[in-house]
């Protein structure tokens, strides 16, 4: 069994009010390390066995068509060891 992770983030130019809200809240709690925060989504997909190149290509396609909205989001697919 393997886990494929797809991370989806808003494109850098898109307004991210949730990320901004988090960035505003951190210093209020005493955390001063952040210059910016962006919020995204993480999909964890479990498959049987080790992922083949064909399967990864399919995951990419699914990421393009369903898991992300390419108009406003970017995605990254990786296999988690």
């Amino acid at each position, binding site marked *: 069994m393997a886990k494929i992770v797809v991370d989806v983030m*808003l*494109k850098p*130019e*898109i*307004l991210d*009010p*949730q990320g901004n*809200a988090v960035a505003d809240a951190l210093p209020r709690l005493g955390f001063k390390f952040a210059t910016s925060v962006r919020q995204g989504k993480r999909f964890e997909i479990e498959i049987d066995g080790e992922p083949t190149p064909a399967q990864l290509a399919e995951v990419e396609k699914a990421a393009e068509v*369903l*898991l992300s*909205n390419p*108009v*406003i989001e970017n995605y990254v697919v990786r296999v988690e060891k």
Partner: protein
Amino acid sequence: MRVGVITFPGTLDDRDAARAVVVGGAEAVSLWHGDADLKSVDAVVLPGGFSYGDYLRCGAISRFAPVMQLVIEAANKGMPVLGICNGFQVLCESHLLPGALTRNADLHFLCRDQEIQIVNNSTPWTNSFKQGEQIVIPLKNGEGSFQCDDQTLAMLEGEGRVIARYVGENPNGSRNLIAGITNAKGNVVGLMPHPEHAINELTGPSAQGLGFFTSILNAMVK
């Protein structure tokens, strides 16, 4: 004149849209998301609500419904389609309209009587308004911020494809105060606020939303 109103699981304003269609003078035809059947309607309305609970992204799952395949084909052939609120979101996810609707800038759901200006009255959904006419209809959503890249924005503005703009303070962070847009052919319209809730002063802030539902009759008559 038959106007289809689609119900997805979680659609909320379908009965209100159907009521508005009828008050506007057409026959409302209920369309089920799971049936690939447009029942010979002349136009389609995608109403507001929280289809599929807004899971994943608003409209992201509805877009793949069997009925949507037919809507896309019909729209490409010129059938008038109106997407209201969640309907607008479905149209963007379907790529019938450019851009995307994202979370309101202040993160709150907002329900208010919103003044908008009709800036393109040449579509089948806006022809009964005067160019530049200002109307008050309810705005009620949590993800109404219209976003797109600069190129898309330039195209929409340049081609006159913005059909309505918010008047006054930007309620949700939409680029250029965009409240509604149309496609290149001018038959598909997406609108964030809810005209179906402004069809009389008894239950709404005005009767000015009715214009969207009388326009479609004018369009068919032509």
